[in-house]
């Protein structure tokens, strides 16, 4: 049991170290890295199977009892997040195969991606506030290296923006963790939950926790703290920005969901604030996208807008709404990463990612048009794709909770999302290419990229058609989030 619980972190770290040992042999690095990513995916799927049987894995690192040692908890939400991290990690690495880039560059991408995955998975399984900070830093250093990789003026400038604002967010989190420790004497999430649920938390503890929520909001790119995301994601290499788009902001969303549901199982003042933040994030993100004319910049703003939906589910705080948020998280990670991948293939075929210089893709490669249409329609919420069910549950939950405004904004954002996607469709796929002889002159590119986009599209369709079981899993996960039995029982074995 105890080995299983550390596997999500152990697998990427071991892969990274093994790959480093043979870093002069690029084929070996690629082989080890793909095997490692596959192992992580299998670990995630196994954890989901374990969690679906209502077993919550818990462990104390080094055998130190809670709250003195670091606790790890893998419940339904953590398990599914690890699994989806495995999916996107593997997809990114397969997309990178045989890309026309220098061999050293591709090797470095493989290495850093595993460093990043270790940090992301660590953040999903920890039940200790300071440990969460450490995992944030691990994933941050991996993402810094990835975003700057390749260099060039534009990329280094974007990396600088990303770097400064994310470092600031992490520093705020460190300060918050210190203040919470100073006020409560604990860093264990379970003990904090007991304290807040018994309404015994002091004002100082509240202050620390609010600061923590603000720092997570920067990470999750919530209104009004999202500025760094659309300013930096589009400068990275395509697979890297797809990986970021899929997973990074979602670590912030996960941390918000975890902390808010643990500390305030019932609607509180925090939920009221989050509701307005969620509505503003949805609508402003999508309006920001309307002003953009490049594929990845449009998609970056959509990340912001979509995060709003998840936070809406969190803010409504009913079991159905939380389940909607969990469902949205699962659906969104797959769809968003896929749109970036397809955007990369489209940019390769047309020779640009500026919409004005794109075109003719529908006539040239109908397959790519299908591969774009599936995630794009899913993002906008067209039935029967996964996004429809995610939005349907959230709108239903808002109406049940009597929050008409939230339902209105959610639907309005859906309409604008569809407009945005049809803009890419019209400009990139339907319109004739401005220089027809340029179209496709670079070839179709590596097959791995097409397989990646195809498999992720199939997953989207599968989530849409099999929405029942996924929703059941999400409902059970949401009950687990509210009751948090494993977290509250962490301290049971504690010596007096």
């Amino acid at each position, binding site marked *: 049991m105890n080995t299983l619980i550390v596997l999500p972190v152990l697998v990427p770290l071991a892969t990274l170290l093994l790959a480093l040992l043979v870093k002069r042999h690029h084929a070996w690095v690629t082989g080890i890295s793909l095997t490692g990513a596959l192992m992580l995916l299998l670990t995630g799927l196994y954890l989901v199977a374990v969690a679906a049987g209502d077993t919550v894995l818990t462990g104390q690192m080094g055998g130190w009892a809670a709250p003195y040692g670091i606790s790890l908890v893998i419940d339904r939400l953590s398990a599914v997040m690890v699994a989806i991290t495995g999916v996107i990690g593997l997809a990114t690495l397969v997309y990178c195969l045989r890309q026309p880039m220098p061999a050293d560059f591709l090797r470095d991408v493989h290495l850093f991606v595993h460093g990043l995955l270790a940090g992301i998975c660590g953040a999903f399984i920890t039940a200790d506030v300071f440990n969460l900070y450490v995992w944030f830093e691990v994933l941050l250093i991996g993402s810094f290296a990835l975003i700057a990789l390749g260099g060039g003026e534009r990329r*280094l400038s974007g990396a600088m923006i990303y770097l400064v604002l994310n470092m600031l967010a992490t520093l705020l989190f460190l*300060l918050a963790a210190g203040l919470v420790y100073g006020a409560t004497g604990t860093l264990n999430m379970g003990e904090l939950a007991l304290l807040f649920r018994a309404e015994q938390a002091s004002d100082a503890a509240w202050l620390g926790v609010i600061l923590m929520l603000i720092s997570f909001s920067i990470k999750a790119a919530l209104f009004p703290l999202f500025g760094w995301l659309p300013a930096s994601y589009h400068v990275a290499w395509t697979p890297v920005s797809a990986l970021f788009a899929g997973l990074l902001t979602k670590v912030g969303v996960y941390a918000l969901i975890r902390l808010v549901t643990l500390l305030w199982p019932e609607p509180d003042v925090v939920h009221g604030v989050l509701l307005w933040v969620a509505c503003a994030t949805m609508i402003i993100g999508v309006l920001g996208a309307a002003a953009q004319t490049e594929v990845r910049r449009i998609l970056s703003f959509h990340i912001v807008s979509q995060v709003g939906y998840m936070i809406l589910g969190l803010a409504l705080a009913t079991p159905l709404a939380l389940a909607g948020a969990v469902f949205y998280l699962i659906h969104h990670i797959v769809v968003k990463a896929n749109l970036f991948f397809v955007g990369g293939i489209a*940019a390769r075929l047309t020779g640009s990612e500026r919409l004005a210089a794109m075109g003719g893709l529908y006539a040239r490669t109908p397959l790519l048009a299908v591969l774009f249409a599936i995630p794009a329609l899913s993002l906008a919420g067209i039935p029967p794709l996964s996004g429809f069910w995610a939005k349907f549950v959230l709108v239903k939950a808002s109406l049940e909770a009597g929050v008409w405004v939230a339902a209105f904004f959610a639907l309005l954002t859906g309409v604008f999302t569809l407009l945005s996607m049809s803009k890419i469709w019209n400009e990139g796929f339907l319109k004739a290419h401005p220089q027809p002889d340029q179209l496709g002159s670079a070839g179709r590119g590596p097959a791995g990229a097409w397989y990646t986009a195809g498999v992720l599209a199939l997953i989207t369709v599968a989530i849409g058609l099999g929405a029942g079981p996924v929703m059941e899993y999400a409902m059970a996960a949401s009950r687990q989030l509210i009751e948090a039995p494993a977290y509250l029982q962490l301290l049971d074995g504690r010596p007096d």
Partner: protein
Amino acid sequence: MEWIGAITAGIMAALGVWMMLDRHLMRVVLGIAVLGNAINLGVLSAGRFAGTEAAFTFAGQTLQNPANPLPQALVLTAIVIGFALFVFALSVLKRTHELHGDKDTDDVSQVTEQPSPDGGEEQDPAGRGQGRQ
């Protein structure tokens, strides 16, 4: 003792924020470093300085006034991580300066807002092979 630490941390945080508001990128990065150290000191102060004895006991022994080792362990971790990130930020800055000249915060935003280069990044990594030693 705590209040000295708290006030120092506050002054350092103010200095750090002030430096981060500067247009010059070097000062922004240095500001992050100062703010980081202010926060380290803040975490240490929040953990109290009252203890005077090392928290290390043998069986049957009790300590009168043990110091809390946890904040020290936390801050030690944070210092190490902060140092690594600071060095990384400095190296990105150095590289930008060497290859593309001096940049202030406005330049950086302007460069990232430029339309993406045609020819597709896929085939033409900007500055391939650069950025490595």
